[in-house]
């Protein structure tokens, strides 16, 4: 879907982005992760030509974006900014309607689409008439998301979209973000410096440093097969919680015995959930179990806390020897 080839950006002598290549598949969620100044935002902005590269190409659906008119290109790419960038002199409705207006949609179509979106994003009709300054930070960010999604672009670029929010609001929005069906149809590139966020939301993570990609892989690959010391040190501090979050219950399937508990075992979870989610459901009473449904194998297993931990340990052992 998106191919980035040998992309470079130099500001004077500073190499902000230094020979970067990666691919993003359709409906994939790629995270550009790194500390500030690592070139992740510059990379993102070269994809909708907010910044023109010094060298290299970006292909979208195998078409070179440098051959397209930037305005037309951008109308087909949703963009969400850290500080939302809503127009303070436009109402919420007008803000969301900017791109439809540029594309000359008729009014009815725009209105229908807006009311569809605000429902999905938990905004109220009254808020449509408000100005952005009258909304809370979380609401503003939702409006920013609605604005980016309104014409249903196939691609979404997000620059630290949740960076300005407090922890509680951010956690809520993360949950909504993952649940939003609109986003499941999108190819997303998201920039963040928040490791937890990257592991929670990303299908793949590009860890960047000093304008280069250090490692590009799935969360599990980064955790268990770090390319070098930089990667493992970068993740060190939050390693355990990251591991619990990124290892899925399905990954442990072979070490979970098909134990059938007498009562069919507590809460039922999908095997696609992370180990962390599984752990959260234990109430720590005797005979406390959860049941896990694996659709792939069409099989349900019921597990206790100790067994889960032991399976996780064995999984890690195996990863280390691979």
């Amino acid at each position, binding site marked *: 879907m998106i191919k980035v080839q040998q992309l470079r950006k130099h500001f004077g002598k500073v190499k902000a982005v230094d020979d970067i290549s990666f691919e993003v598949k359709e409906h994939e969620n790629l995270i550009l992760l790194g500390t500030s100044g690592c070139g992740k935002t510059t990379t993102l902005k070269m994809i909708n030509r907010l910044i023109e590269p010094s060298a290299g190409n970006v292909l979208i659906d195998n078409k070179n974006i440098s051959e397209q008119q930037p305005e037309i290109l951008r109308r087909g790419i949703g963009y969400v900014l850290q500080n*939302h960038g809503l127009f303070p*002199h436009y109402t919420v409705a007008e803000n969301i309607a900017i791109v439809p207006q540029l594309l000359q949609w008729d009014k009815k179509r725009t209105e229908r689409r807006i009311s569809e979106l605000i429902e999905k994003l938990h905004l109220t009709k009254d808020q449509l008439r408000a100005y952005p300054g009258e909304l809370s930070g979380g609401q503003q960010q939702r409006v920013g998301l609605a604005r980016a999604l309104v014409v249903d672009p196939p691609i979404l670029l997000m620059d630290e979209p949740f960076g300005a929010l407090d922890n509680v609001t951010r956690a809520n929005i993360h949950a909504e973000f993952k649940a939003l069906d609109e986003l499941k149809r999108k190819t997303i590139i998201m920039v963040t410096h928040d490791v937890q966020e990257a592991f929670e939301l990303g299908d793949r993570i590009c860890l960047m440093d000093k304008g280069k990609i250090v490692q590009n892989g799935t969360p599990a690959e980064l955790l268990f097969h770090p390319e070098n010391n930089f990667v493992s040190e970068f993740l060190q501090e939050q390693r355990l919680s990251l591991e619990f979050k990124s290892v899925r219950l399905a990954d442990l399937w072979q070490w979970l015995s098909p134990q059938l508990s007498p009562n069919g075992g507590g809460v039922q979870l999908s095997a696609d959930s992370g180990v962390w989610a599984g752990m959260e459901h234990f109430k720590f009473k005797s005979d406390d179990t959860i049941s896990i449904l694996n659709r792939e194998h069409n099989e349900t297993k019921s597990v206790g806390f100790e067994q889960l931990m032991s399976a996780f340990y064995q999984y890690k052992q195996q990863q280390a020897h691979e």
Partner: protein
Amino acid sequence: MNEQQQTLWEFMRQQSGKLLEQTVQHIGLTFISLFIAVLIGLPLGIFISRRKKFSGAVLGVAGILQTIPSIALLGFMIPLLGIGPRPAIVALLLYALLPIIRNTFTGITGVDVTVKEAAIAMGMSKWQVLSKVELPLAMPVIFAGIRTATVINVGVATLASYIAAGGLGEFIFGGISLNNTNMILAGAIPAALLAILFDFLLSRLQKLNIKKLKAVTVALPLLLIVLSSFYLLPSAYGTKLKAGFTPEFMGRRDGNLGLQSKYGLKISTVVISDAVMYKAAFEKQLDVISGYSTDGRLKAYDLVVLKDDKNIFPPYFAAPIIQENSLKKFAGLEKILNLLAKRINDSTMTALNYKTDYLHQSPEKVAKDFLVAQKLWKPAQTGGEGMVRIGSKIFGEQYILANIYSMLIKGYSHYDVATKTGLGGTKICFDALTNDQIDFYPEYTGTGLLAILQSPAKVVDSLTASPRATYNYVQDAFEKKYNIKWLKPIGFNNAYALMMRRGQAEKLKIKTISDLKRYLESR
């Protein structure tokens, strides 16, 4: 006080036609220049917000323009654009430029970067980003600039009357020259009210919420055009020759009023400062002007004085007038000042004026050369016995006289001298004298008679023919009324005179004011 207000009100009612005309001209001048300034300043401000490397230069130049004193700027305009509304509008618009450019620049560069980035990222073209995001968001700041420019323009537009562009300055400067408080107030109060009114209206605009601002953005240019067109309404009515009279001359019985009543002279007239009047006549922008008979520029620009065959211009013999108290305080001063009595006749004074006005010699040099030639010059002695304060009005002849007196006092006494030259018109000078801000200044008998004493017509008519009688009358009246003494006349008579270019006067065979009237009435 109540009486004063009454008479002000009466004056305004009496002059309501003129007042309305001047107000309309004033509004027109203000807004036509403001409109053009917006047309230039807004795009320029936008341009430098795009190309920041030009911003320093553009803002610098606009800033320098703003620091040029308004009168000087108007003066610069005359060789380029002549007199009348055009140079005035250009000068005003130059003043209005800085606040407009600067605020446009500040407003646009102050727009939140993320908002701009969002606009671009959504696929807005440069033009759309400007018109839908940057300008609307910068509008409050831009409005503040326009507001500043408006208030500046209302103020500076009063000076437009110096170069025959009309406006409320005609009353203000006429009033200052004529010592007529009502006339000053009749110009100054409406000007101040205009400034307050426009400032208020624009502040209301500024406070409107962003939504309504969209409508205003359309309405404002229209409003500006309508207000600008005010100026075009009182368009020219013409006679064969065009006259330029000073504001002072316009309002005086021995000036334009006398010309109308005694000669029945009807000539299309503009009001103009005497600083530029002679040059305008020389450059054929004006045909007849109200000059002073000893003015150096008479010689410089080859103008001729039309004979006052009906004696409407009273004699204007110059003499120092001095506070009685100062005479007591500075012993021997009277004698020193009288050294100059009868030393300067009309042609000598014209020649001295010519040296400063046209040969651009400094008044000090001219004064010293004169004293040396007259064998009156003595090197300055040590001071320390007290400070004599000399005043002068704001024209060349008075500067020379002030310098001569200063040198005489320093040479013949041990007094120190402070000169306060350039004290505007008669009113300012005379007020300075009566309020003990200065000790003496050279005044003219005619001015004393008419502008200061405001003598009734009957008295004036009885005196006009005789210089001696006029001098005696004012000397007497000043003594009684103000405790101010007229010293001996210096000798020259700097009377009002109508003048024309020599060539034109000879061609049209105009030698007297009656000839001028006949020519104007002929077909």
